[in-house]
């Protein structure tokens, strides 16, 4: 279903149409430069939130079209509508000038629309080829012909430069490889409109380049790619045209050649955005975290951390940069006592906390803002007050005499924190699952900082938050730094790390590849470290 239109014919057609267009006012004839996909006046509401408000989008044949906006702008929702996952409340979708109604992704796939979500929809226990042909109509209901399918897959993958082993189990593939499988899955089913939701979030800089090359190959054949992102640099780099969304509304569509980063940022956010903070000079104190040659394994028994040695001192923010999945989660876990080390030593506040319990680490002065707040940070069915009391519930102020836990104590503390952190909720007794992502994160922050920790681990603290909440969190971390807290910031958002860290340690496959100083070390060098390359001796830190 890949249309091979000869370039010469195309040009002739365009000239003809231009002349016709000049002579006639009537635009309704179908022609080759009509947009491939048109979404008109799409509105979609969820409960009380208008996710898409009368949004128009048109995507041409053979173009890479970026959908730009910050978290919560409505980009994913719009594409989920195009992919048939959601039915719009109002509005229409046109494919090649024909109106289409899709009741499910199956309809979308049948029409050539494929979507690759941020969280891959692959089955890890199955092989690549099984994932690719899953739910495809088969000639023979009694037999799965994997060999034939694998052959077709190999042909397809070599055509677009996407190397893959059809028989590998998906769970054993790297994230970049899994993304390749997702792309192949779409192409195998005859997709000619490929939607990708934040595809570079999980890739190293080199993998991003590889992906962009693949996308260019794909559109060369007349297919289109819709690329959802919140990263300005990439969007300007790869796309032909950019549509900016903000708060559910479409702001504008521009050609990427005609617009600057600052202009895009302003359109995205609606105001001047700096995300650059004043970091007052703070004299660094004694170490609050000391890790020496720490090694540990992950859940599958493979090595996750390999001889990690690092230090965090009072009054400094140490940023751990790296693509997700290189040991960051395990790093936070071993410090917190949630995972055993296989060797090495960890000291929090000069106390040996190697292989201690979670409780002990907390008592020695650790606070942890975990990634994945809804699973690791909060008990969604508990109220705000109960979540605040979750840590040290058996101690004052929550339990005064060791036995009697008075819920009112928790409520009082929660009220105080609610005001201090401006947490928007109807009252502190409402279940925390009713709060927005930003406010949920504020609850976690409030609880963790309330204990006045010496060491704070902040893992992906602004993931999924809108710009306002992101600013709040980042400013708060800098504030605590001035109060002599030692902060270990783990983030896959390099911009964030660069904005607030004093020192950067790059982690790759469980090893610290090197140390960088924001401003002194070039981003290119940091990117190289993130991708596993060694850099010149000057940029290498000692720890």
């Amino acid at each position, binding site marked *: 279903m890949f249309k091979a239109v000869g370039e010469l014919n195309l040009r002739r057609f365009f000239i003809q149409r231009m002349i016709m267009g000049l002579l006639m006012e009537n635009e309704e004839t179908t022609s080759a430069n009509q947009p491939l996909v048109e979404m008109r006046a799409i509105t979609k509401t969820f409960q009380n939130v208008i996710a898409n408000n009368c949004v128009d989008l048109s995507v041409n044949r053979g173009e890479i079209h970026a959908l730009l906006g910050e978290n919560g702008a409505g980009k994913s929702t719009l594409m989920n509508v195009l992919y048939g996952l959601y039915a719009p409340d109002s509005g229409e979708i046109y494919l090649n000038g024909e109106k289409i109604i899709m009741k499910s992704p199956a309809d979308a796939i049948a029409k050539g629309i494929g979507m690759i979500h941020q*969280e891959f929809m692959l089955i890890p226990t199955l092989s690549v080829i099984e994932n690719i042909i899953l739910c495809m109509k088969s000639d023979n209901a009694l037999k799965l012909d994997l060999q034939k399918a694998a052959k077709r897959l190999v042909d397809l993958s070599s055509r677009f430069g996407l190397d893959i082993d059809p028989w590998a189990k998906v769970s054993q593939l790297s994230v970049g490889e899994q993304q390749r499988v997702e792309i192949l899955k779409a192409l195998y089913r005859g997709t000619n409109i490929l939607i990708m939701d934040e595809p570079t979030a999980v890739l190293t800089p080199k993998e991003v380049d590889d992906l962009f090359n693949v996308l260019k190959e794909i559109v060369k054949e007349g297919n289109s790619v819709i690329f959802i992102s919140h990263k300005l640099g990439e969007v300007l780099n790869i796309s032909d045209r950019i549509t900016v969304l903000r708060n559910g509304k479409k702001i504008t569509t521009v050609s990427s050649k005609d617009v600057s980063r600052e202009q895009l940022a302003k359109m995205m956010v609606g105001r001047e955005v700096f995300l650059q903070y004043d970091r007052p000079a703070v004299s660094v104190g004694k170490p609050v975290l000391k890790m020496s040659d720490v090694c540990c394994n992950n859940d599958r028994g493979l090595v996750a951390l390999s001889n990690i040695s690092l230090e965090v001192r009072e009054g400094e923010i140490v940023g751990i940069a790296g693509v997700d999945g290189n040991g960051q989660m395990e790093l936070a876990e071993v410090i917190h006592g949630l995972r055993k080390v296989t060797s090495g030593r960890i000291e929090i506040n000069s106390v040996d906390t190697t292989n201690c319990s*979670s*409780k002990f680490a907390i008592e020695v002065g650790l606070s942890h803002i*975990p990634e994945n707040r809804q*699973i690791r940070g909060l008990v969604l*069915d508990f109220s705000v007050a109960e979540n605040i009391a979750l840590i040290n*519930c058996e101690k004052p102020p929550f339990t005064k005499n060791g036995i009697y*836990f008075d819920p009112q104590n928790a409520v009082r503390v929660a009220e105080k924190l609610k005001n201090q952190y401006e947490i928007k909720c109807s009252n502190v007794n409402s279940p925390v699952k009713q709060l927005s992502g930003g406010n949920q994160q504020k609850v976690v922050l409030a609880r963790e900082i309330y204990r006045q920790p010496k060491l704070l681990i902040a893992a992906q603290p602004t993931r999924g938050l809108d710009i306002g909440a992101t600013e709040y969190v980042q400013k708060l971390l800098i504030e605590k730094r001035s109060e002599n807290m030692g902060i270990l910031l783990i983030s896959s958002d390099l911009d964030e790390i660069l904005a607030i860290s004093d020192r950067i340690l790059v982690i790759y496959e469980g090893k610290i590849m090197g140390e960088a100083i924001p401003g002194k070390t070039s981003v290119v060098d940091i990117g190289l470290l993130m991708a596993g390359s060694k850099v010149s001796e000057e940029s290498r830190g000692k720890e």
Partner: protein
Amino acid sequence: MMKPVINKNNVTKHSHNKGRIQAISSFLAILMALLLSGLTISITGVNPFAAIRVLFSGAFGSSYAFSETLLRTTPILIASIGLAISFRCNLTSVGAEGQMIIGAIAATFTGLKISLASPVLEILVCIIAGFLGGALFGAIPGYLKAKLGTSEIIVTIMLNYIAIDLLSYLLDGPMREGGSFYPQSALLDQSVWLPKIIAGTRLHAGFIIAIVFDIIYFFLMFRTPLGFKIRAVGFNSKAAEYAGVNVGRSILTAMMLSGGLAGIAGAIEIFGVHHRLLNGFTAGVGFDALAVALLGKLNPVGVFLASLFFAALKVGSNTMQHVMQVPTSIVYVIQGLLILFVFTDTLIKDKLLYFEKRLKTKQSGE
């Protein structure tokens, strides 16, 4: 795209729903269960309305019948409180039956062996023995779950069968009443019998003890750090772990409390009603407690009312069998149906929301 998967079990989720919705869904469940059971009864040629009438008169018709109902409520209430504790920790324990038996064995053994000055003290020691027996038996699935993640459902069910066999063995041999033809233990000394609280009936002090435990349950769950931790682990053990809660210890404690309470239920049944150890003394209370904990939505008041309801079913069904020849197994039918229907509140809520939405779009569409 966040896909939070925390508590696969939507039993504990109910405790934050509005009490009214919970009560309504429980009532609807009772209604549906009685309806379908009535249907079953009518298939076999018996008039269901007459049968239900006999059932209720058998349970509440006279003051003696009422005392019997309260009598039956006692072990069910205590055992279901135990199950409620384990459910709140997201543990599906089906082991009340076996834990009751072990508790009863421990308590009876103690009662037959010791002799203290004060009868109150003796009874107390025996009940504690019952608690310990049940708690140790409950510690087995608790420990296996905490350490290895072994399914507590299968382990508790297996332990039930093991306990039944153990009891039978003990009553055949080691604990058999000297020279008796029947497999039963020696009779407990009258001094340790639980005193009757209403003369002329079988209702004994165990009923008061059960009510006291219900109140203790409320305090434990909602006014102590231990209860708070158990609930936190039940809703989201990962977040609890991050917050410094020792998840394994909470699981073990919950299972031991659960087993211990079932053990007390067993001890009280022996010391209050039979006064000696017998085969089959549990009379299915363990399964009743399961349905009661669910029907009562793990709530202290709900569990009390549900226990009362089930006891009424048990007592009334005996009368129903005598008078109308309806087999007592109908109680299991009702129980099973109750469990099946008690979770329909999500279905009902969804349907209501769906109809509301249809109405709204109809109104705004035109």
